[in-house]
């Protein structure tokens, strides 16, 4: 198997937690993994991305070639569109629809949704609202992971293990909140794909 995933968002939105949860799950499944991140200047409110590659065979490049990504997970509606050149023809765009507006010329949400919906393989989810309903507005990134989980070739239980490992040190309550967030995201996609 192989999953090439682009994670997109704005510096500080927690895309690296999503990558870490998938990474831990992949390791438990004895898969190869490479994950490239952006550090430095862009983290100050700029656009940030992570290339996450999982495979049963050794992986050569740390970066995903254009047109080869199986999945884009974006925690912000405009940021997912930025990486469309990387997405393969039958890849999926899974995006949050709550905007992070920190620039003067940020487009209208209607224009963004129009572009997202023009893309056949898309999941557009209000992760912030779902996270809030699941008990923690700060878990919207894990809702996004749940929403993307049907497109990642790793057993769902392994992703749950990844969440447990990632948040375990911070207590059971946080683990359970995030497991709920993960499930809520997955259920949304199962109903809406």
């Amino acid at each position: 198997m192989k999953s090439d995933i682009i994670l997109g968002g704005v510096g500080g939105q927690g895309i690296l937690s999503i990558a870490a949860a998938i990474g831990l799950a992949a390791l438990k499944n004895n898969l190869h993994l490479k994950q490239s991140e952006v550090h430095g200047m862009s983290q100050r409110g700029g656009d940030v991305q992570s290339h996450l590659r999982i495979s049963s065979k050794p992986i050569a490049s740390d970066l995903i070639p254009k047109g080869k990504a199986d999945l884009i997970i974006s925690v912000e509606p405009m940021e997912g569109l930025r990486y469309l050149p990387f997405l393969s023809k039958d890849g999926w765009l899974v995006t949050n629809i709550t905007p992070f507006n920190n620039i003067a010329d940020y487009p209208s949400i209607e224009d963004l949704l129009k572009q997202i919906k023009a893309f056949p393989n898309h999941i557009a989810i209000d992760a912030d609202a779902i996270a809030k309903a699941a008990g923690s507005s700060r878990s919207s990134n894990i809702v996004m992971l749940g929403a993307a989980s049907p497109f990642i070739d790793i057993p769902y239980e392994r992703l749950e293990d990844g969440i447990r490992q990632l948040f375990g040190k911070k207590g059971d309550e946080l683990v359970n909140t995030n497991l709920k967030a993960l499930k809520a995201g997955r259920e949304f996609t199962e109903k809406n794909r």
Partner: protein
Amino acid sequence: MEKLLLLGDEAIAQGAIDGGMSGIYAYPGTPSTEIMEFVHGSKIAEDLNIHRLWSANEKTAMESALGMSYAGKRSMVCFKHVGLNVAADAFVNASITGVNGGVIVVSADDPSMHSSQNEQDSRFYAKFTMIPILEPSNQQEAYDMAYYGFELSEKLNVPVMLRITTRLAHSRAGVQRKEMKKQNQLKLPSDPRQFVLLPAIARKNYKKLIGMQPAMEVESEKSPFNQYIDGADKKLGIIAAGLAFNYLMENYVDGKNPHPILKLSQYPLPEKQVAKLYNQCDAILILEDGAPLIEEMLRGFLNLGKPIHGRLDGTVPRDGELDPNVVAKALGMEVHEGQVVPEVVKNRPPSLCQGCGHRDVFEELNEVLLDYGTGRVFSDIGCYTLAALPPFNSINSCVDMGASITMAIGAADAGLVPAVSVIGDSTFTHSGMTGLLDAVNKNSPITVIISDNSTTGMTGGQTSAAHGRIYEICKGLGVDPEHLITMIPLKKHHEENVKILRRELEYKGLSVLIPQRECIQTFARRKKSEKNESNE
């Protein structure tokens, strides 16, 4: 041994710890920062009491590492590529002194300038100082090279450069650890004058360094990091240096390469292997993440040999980092891009955080400068450089660490009065203090604003070398206390601060203003950890 999931930077740190390192010296700079940060977080480093404090700048770091080597122990020094310029005096001479304990110099290059002012290639430094370079292609090699580099350094009696680029520094993969080596014992150099670079001794040492070159080549020829991988189609031979090897192999299905490849990760160039490739193939393609260093060597000034393809003939773009697509194009393969980016997607440049004290400083400065006109603000390297962008549009220069003060001096000397410099606290102690001494000595009519957020902010909040002592340092350098003023950059002090700024800009001598407010990022983290501690 256990397998860890590590960034390239972290793999270097773990490799050095396991390879018997006694001390690491560094100044933060993207993409090198996480090497030291990993050592800070390492339980083993703590238990072994490995020295691991940040240095004031890259030169002090390099010199301290050399001092540890003098005392017989293994040391590592880390910085970003432009940090090597700051350390260059010590770095270049360290090849003449040679080492006692092994020294690894990690220089993290930033092709495509993700977080930098240029994309200089550190390999040129190592080449003209005639020391070996290790250039990993993946995280495991980054670990192995840091582990093995100390021994290489001790064997060849020179510092060894470990050169990485951004993508490897900041990409994670599984890394297999090795048995931990013991640290060296304290041991003085056998020749007490080895490190005394008086001309007579330096000349002798230099001949010794030249004499070591064949031994360095032997190491490269037999290095496990250099590999000759044969291929059937000899129309082309490919040299892939460091990370470029991965991008190359990404383009070959199931790793089956049609052409012979020289995977190159240890320099000086292994002459026999390069010659073999050259003699077997009709043309050579050179893939290197950075400047065309190998390409220039193979091509020669007159380019009279076989066709050499790379950055110089346009097969690969002359600037910018490599990636799988750039390499595919160089191989003549077609690149199938996905969809185009819709027009609705706008640029999202980085910006100063909401609640950041630098914001207040620039709002105050902009207001006062309305009386003088724009074009007179010299700034520096740090978060505040973002004030070059809207909505502030405040600054007119950002060149190198410390240049804000000295460029303001020169501009004032030319008649641009008043000239203003804006520098951060960590940049000031890195390279601004000597410039300020120049300004004191001639009472330059400049206003220096040291925007003190009590941290090294841009790289993620590392210790600022003179935390809480900026005022005293300025006073000690001789700044007139009447024109040395601390301010608090908050909305409620706006009018008061504007008044001070206006007064000091009118003053025809040197003023130093120190707006002081903790970085909003470190403030938030500190509050959170205080809250967590009180909950426990």
